[in-house]
């Protein structure tokens, strides 16, 4: 590798840090540079993803054969909830925050986030929160066994591990609202010259929409958890969720799902935005229907606030209410369909280039559609009453979050990896990673639709013997799926040292501002003069030539 200068923000910026690794580490931990904070978010997210993945491996090992195998049922009961908590709150959401920390300031031509110190503080809330949640395993009574939803009365009766879990979740929520405040201030106030709101990249748009979702929904979860914690701590005084004391356990579910339904959009909208960057670049065409793409994200977000009770169809709420929520839920398929078809239309007639990020984007479109369709199936009240709490729901959520969010995360990481490190990843191993992931996502999760339709309940320690063959297939698939992710990790880590050095516009067809910065970018992104946004007018067939359509044409 050449001089440290070429490594941009990655290289030590003080003399002391150049000499001592500890100082270099300290420079990272105390940095206010959004790019470094972004990388730390990603590293932490990957670490928690590995732990969360390992927990799911324990689940799949236990379920590989019928009957008790390697663990006790009480220990098993803690696994689904812990797995979900780690994956949702500590893996997917922080990784998107990390990617966005790196990319959003670049894409809007800003030197940094609006509140760099708040940014760093928000990140450093995460590791203690993760530690708190995991340390529930170490206290008497062990980790809570009530799943990731924490419904009372189970969560009121649970041992003190539940207190750690609740505190951890409240901290994560605080961290992500801090990030949301920061993103909104950054995007609304720090765009470079000429970049109006409807000139922004769709990834930046997705972060704006996601941040509003976080601001409006996460605090409601915080209030629900605070009420739960009050009831746990002062059982004589507080009876919010306890019918014997005049409370209402369904109230908790309302508040919980008021957050947790929008939360699935918090986990997928940044992915939508990301795919809207990758597909135009590798199709060499501008995105189809840009304004509609932005508005459909807003529509999804707004609708996302009025559908929460579709998780509660079996709680006995009034049938009229259920019908209303069913219709509203199905309506969400409309803006989502608009997005899917716009991506297809973007590729239509383009000259496609099947690099790893593009492969992940295509795999995402295909499999997310399956997850979307099974969502519409579940939205229908009579079907949901049958399928509620079965493996069909597990299959659905994993098609949305693994084939959805995780595939887009990989797409984005491969896409911006050369920008982040200044070196190219290994394309061959990237493709191997893609194919193994895609194939084994389907091996693992597709058959769970069948299991659910046959009536296998989720979160159970054991199952009827006729489900064994399908569970074995699912388990084997999940082992390979988990192992395949390490290919990517090794590839991405080794390539920092061995990969070819890359130019500014690595893919040749990037049109957003991040491709105008050095790879990797310098400390304040753009050196010297601040960038001025000029939209790149690119139509197919003119390749790198800039087409200049005049009004007369």
């Amino acid at each position, binding site marked *: 590798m050449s001089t440290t200068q070429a490594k941009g923000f990655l290289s030590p910026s003080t003399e002391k840090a150049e000499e001592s690794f500890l100082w270099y580490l300290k420079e990272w931990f105390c940095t206010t540079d959004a790019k470094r904070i972004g990388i730390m978010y990603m590293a932490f997210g990957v670490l928690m993803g590995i732990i969360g993945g390992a927990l799911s491996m324990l689940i799949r090992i236990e379920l590989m054969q019928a009957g008790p195998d390697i663990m006790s049922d009480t220990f098993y009961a803690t696994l689904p909830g812990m797995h979900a908590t780690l994956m949702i709150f500590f893996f997917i959401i922080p990784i998107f925050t990390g990617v966005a920390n790196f990319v959003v300031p670049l894409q809007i031509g800003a030197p940094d986030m609006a509140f*760099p110190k708040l940014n760093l503080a928000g990140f450093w809330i995460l590791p203690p929160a993760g530690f708190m949640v995991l340390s529930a395993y170490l206290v008497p009574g062990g980790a809570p066994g009530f799943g990731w939803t924490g419904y009372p009365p189970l969560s009121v009766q649970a041992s003190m591990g539940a207190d750690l879990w609740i505190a951890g979740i409240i901290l994560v929520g605080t961290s992500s609202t801090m990030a949301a405040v920061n993103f909104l201030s950054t995007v*609304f106030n720090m765009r470079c010259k000429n970049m109006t709101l409807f000139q922004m990249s769709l990834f930046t748009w997705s972060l704006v929409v996601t941040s509003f979702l976080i601001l409006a929904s996460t605090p409601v979860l*915080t*209030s*629900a958890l605070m009420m739960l914690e009050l009831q746990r701590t002062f059982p*004589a*005084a507080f*009876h919010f969720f306890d019918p014997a004391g*005049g409370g209402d356990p369904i109230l908790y579910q309302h508040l919980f799902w008021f957050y947790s339904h929008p939360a699935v959009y918090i986990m997928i909208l940044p992915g939508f935005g990301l795919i809207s960057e990758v597909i135009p670049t590798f199709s060499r065409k501008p995105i189809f229907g840009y304004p509609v793409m932005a508005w459909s994200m807003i529509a999804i977000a707004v609708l996302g606030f009025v559908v929460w009770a579709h998780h509660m169809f079996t709680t006995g709420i009034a049938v009229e209410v259920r019908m209303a929520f069913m219709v509203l839920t199905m309506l969400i398929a409309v803006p989502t369909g608009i997005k899917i078809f716009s991506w297809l239309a973007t590729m239509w007639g383009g000259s496609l280039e099947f690099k790893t990020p593009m492969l992940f984007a295509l795999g995402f479109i295909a499999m997310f559609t399956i997850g979307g369709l099974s969502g519409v199936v579940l939205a229908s009240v009579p079907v949901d009453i049958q399928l509620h709490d079965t493996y069909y729901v597990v299959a659905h959520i994993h098609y949305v979050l693994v084939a959805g969010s995780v595939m887009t995360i990989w797409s984005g990481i491969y896409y911006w990896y050369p920008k982040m490190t200044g070196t190219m990843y290994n394309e061959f191993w990237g493709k191997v990673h893609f194919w193994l992931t895609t194939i084994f996502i389907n091996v693992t999760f597709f058959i769970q639709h069948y299991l659910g339709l046959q009536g296998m309940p989720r979160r159970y320690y054991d199952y009827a013997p006729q489900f064994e063959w399908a569970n074995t297939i699912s388990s084997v698939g999940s082992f390979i799926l988990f192992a395949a992710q390490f290919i990517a990790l090794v590839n991405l880590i080794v390539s920092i040292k061995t990969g070819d050095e890359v130019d500014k516009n690595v893919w040749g067809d990037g049109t957003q501002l991040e491709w105008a910065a050095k790879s990797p970018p310098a400390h304040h992104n753009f050196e010297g003069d*601040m960038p001025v946004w000029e939209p790149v007018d690119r139509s197919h067939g003119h390749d790198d030539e800039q087409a200049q359509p005049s009004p007369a044409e």
Partner: protein
Amino acid sequence: MADVEPGPESLGVSNGKIGMWTFLVMDAMTFAGFLAGYARLRWSPESGWPNPIETFGTLGIQVTAANTFILICSSVSMVHALAEAMNDNLERARTWMLVTIVGGLIFLGVQGFEWTHLILDKWPYLMEVNWVADPSGALQAAMQSIEQHGGYDNLNFAATFFNLTGFHGAHVAVGVMYNFVMYLGLRNGKITGENAELIEIAGLYWHFVDLIWILVFTFVYLI
């Protein structure tokens, strides 16, 4: 490095102001969660919710109304502090800020007095039940205590009361500290007419806390 300037296409306000506004959206939603819980528990069939005016007594309502008036006054003095700071009358700004802080402290003091009275005299089961020793029997013990000493309204009437006024009180306490930092800034000369916006941002928070109190007061005490 600490302060990043707004870009050329900004909304025309500082980053700090947008940051505070977005934070307040989030804070408002936290209160919305609590208030939604309150509404659900109160307005469900057969909740047996007592009439708050009868429970607190006319005198109790009047004391709290006076307290509300003090909080509103402290919002007014906050406006004065900002106006004086913008005109570079830092001496006067400091005095008004001090008035604001004292207003917040009086509010907290009266609320503390009210809590003490309610816990000791009105709802004695709160002190009587040893829930640490036997959490699962806490509800029964509370009911027994109520049978002996009276004070029954509705368990969640007291619970939501403490939840809402307590969470709001915590906001007032944070606001008093925030305002005190502003006061120190004015005294040390770190806040002058040029960066009086810092006081404006603190004011946004303070007025928000005031506004939330009007809601809490209406829901919990008046209707």
